C-alpha cells in the first residue's frame, strides 16, 4: 500500500473522495509522477480492507480528470501532473481556507495589526526558505559543471 495514502474510514468524508484528494495531493507535492504505477483495485481493496467498488469509483474519477490511465493487464499508471484547472481549484480552496481563518480571527477579536504581523512573518519564513533552497540548488548545480 502506498505510504502516502491514509484513509479515515469514519470521518464522514466519502472514502472514494479521500482517495481522489490524496492522489491529487501526492501529484501536487511530487510524490507521484507520470509513469508511476498505482496498486490494482484488488490489491488496494485488500490492503485497505475496503470494497473494491469504492476504489473503482476513485480510479474512474481520477481517469476522468486525466490524471491516471487504467489498461487491462498493464495496471493503472499516472499519466499527468496536476493540470492548470486542477491547480486553480486547489488555489481557490486555499483562499477559502484563508478566508475562514481570518473570519475566525475576527470572531476571536484578534487585533488586525497582530494578524498582519504574523501573516508577514509567515510569508518571510516560507517564501524566504523556498528562495534560499532554490538559490542553493542553483549554486550546487553550477558548482558541479
Amino acid at each position, binding site marked *: 500500500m502506498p505510504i502516502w495514502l491514509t484513509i479515515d474510514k*469514519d470521518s464522514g*468524508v466519502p472514502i472514494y473522495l479521500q482517495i481522489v484528494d490524496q492522489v491529487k495531493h501526492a501529484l501536487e507535492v511530487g510524490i507521484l509522477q507520470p509513469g508511476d504505477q498505482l496498486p490494482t483495485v484488488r490489491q488496494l*481493496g485488500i490492503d485497505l*480492507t*475496503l470494497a*473494491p467498488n469504492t476504489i473503482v469509483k476513485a480510479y474512474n474519477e481520477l481517469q476522468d480528470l486525466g490524471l491516471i490511465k487504467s489498461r487491462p493487464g498493464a495496471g493503472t499508471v499516472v499519466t499527468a501532473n496536476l493540470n492548470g484547472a486542477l491547480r486553480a481549484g486547489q488555489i481557490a480552496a486555499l483562499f477559502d481556507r484563508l478566508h475562514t481563518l481570518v473570519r475566525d480571527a475576527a470572531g476571536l477579536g484578534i487585533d488586525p495589526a497582530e494578524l498582519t504581523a504574523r501573516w508577514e512573518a509567515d510569508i518571510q519564513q516560507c517564501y524566504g526558505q523556498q528562495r534560499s533552497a532554490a538559490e542553493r540548488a542553483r549554486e550546487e548545480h553550477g558548482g558541479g559543471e
Partner: protein
Amino acid sequence: MIDTVAPTDSTRAQAAAERPAIAIHNLVVQYGDRRAVDGLSFTVPAGAIFGFLGLNGAGKTTTIKTLLGFRAPAAGSAQVLGYDIVRDSQAIRARVGYVSETNSLYDQLTIPQIIAFCRATSRRWNGAIVDRYIRTFGLPPRARVGQLSKGMKSQLALSLALGGEPDLLILDEPTNGLDPLARHEVLNTLVREIAAEGKTLFFSSHILTEVEAIADWVAIIRDGRLVVCDELDHLKQTQRVLKLTYDQVPAPAEIAALQALPAVARVEQEGRGVRIVARGDVDALAQQLQGRPGGVRHVDAVNLNLEDLFLEYMKDSSEGQQ
C-alpha cells in the same frame, strides 16, 4: 429456471453484471399477528459489499432466514441469484454461502469431521481455502467444535462457507464475539475472498464502524421497513449538517422559512445557533444560506459518518411515529 448448460466463466460474469444478487419486493413475514418484516423492498447489486443495518429486533435475521427459504413470506416476493425464494430455495441454499448468527454447528464433531460433512453436502468444494483460513484464524485443527470459543466458532463457520466458493455470501452478524484483531482478520478475509473476486457479500450488523470500514452499499431497516438504501459514499455526500450562526437570535418566522427550503430535512435552534440536517444538494444549500439576508454570520458544513447518519435516520422515524 434450473441451469441446463454449465455456464462458462464469462457468461456467468455477464449474468452477474445484469442481474442483482438479491431483489426483494414488498416482502412481508409474520410471527403470529406480528409483522417482523413489513413490506420490505430493496436490491443488492452484484459485486457489492452490502451492509444490512438496524437495531436489534428490526427484522434483519428474519429477512435473511426468509431469503434462504427457512421461513415462508406471508406476502411479496424475492429473488436470490435469480432464483425465487419460495420455489427455488433448494437451489439458493446450494449456491449461497451462509453463516448464521448462532453458528449452529454440531458440537460433538471434530473440525476434520465437520469439514468432511460440508464437503459431502456441497455442490462445489475447495478444501485448500478451508485449510488456509483454519490456519489464518489460528483454529486448533483437530479440536471438537464444542471446545471452541464463540469467536472461533464463527471463524470456523466462515471458513466452511468459503469452502463452497459461493457467488453470494450472506452473513448474520459475522463479527459477534470477536476481539478487534480477529474482527480485522475476518473483514480482510471477506474482502480478499469475496469482494476482490467480484462476488457479492451481504451482511447484517449493528456495529456501524465495521460496516463503514468495508461496505460500499448500505440499507437501514426499522420495524421491518426500509428506512434508506444507498451507496454509502453517495449517502455521505448528500447528507450533511449545516451549522448557522446568526448575529441575533433568529425569529420563529426565519426558522419556518429555513424549514421550507429545498434539501432541508430538519431544523434545530439553540440561541443564535441553528443546526440544519440537509439531504440532497448540500453545497447549493450552503451557498444559498451564505448569501441569505437576515443576519446569517457564517455557515459551516459538517460531514456525517455512518453512525451520525444512522442516528439522524432513527430520529426521523421516531418523529414520524409520534
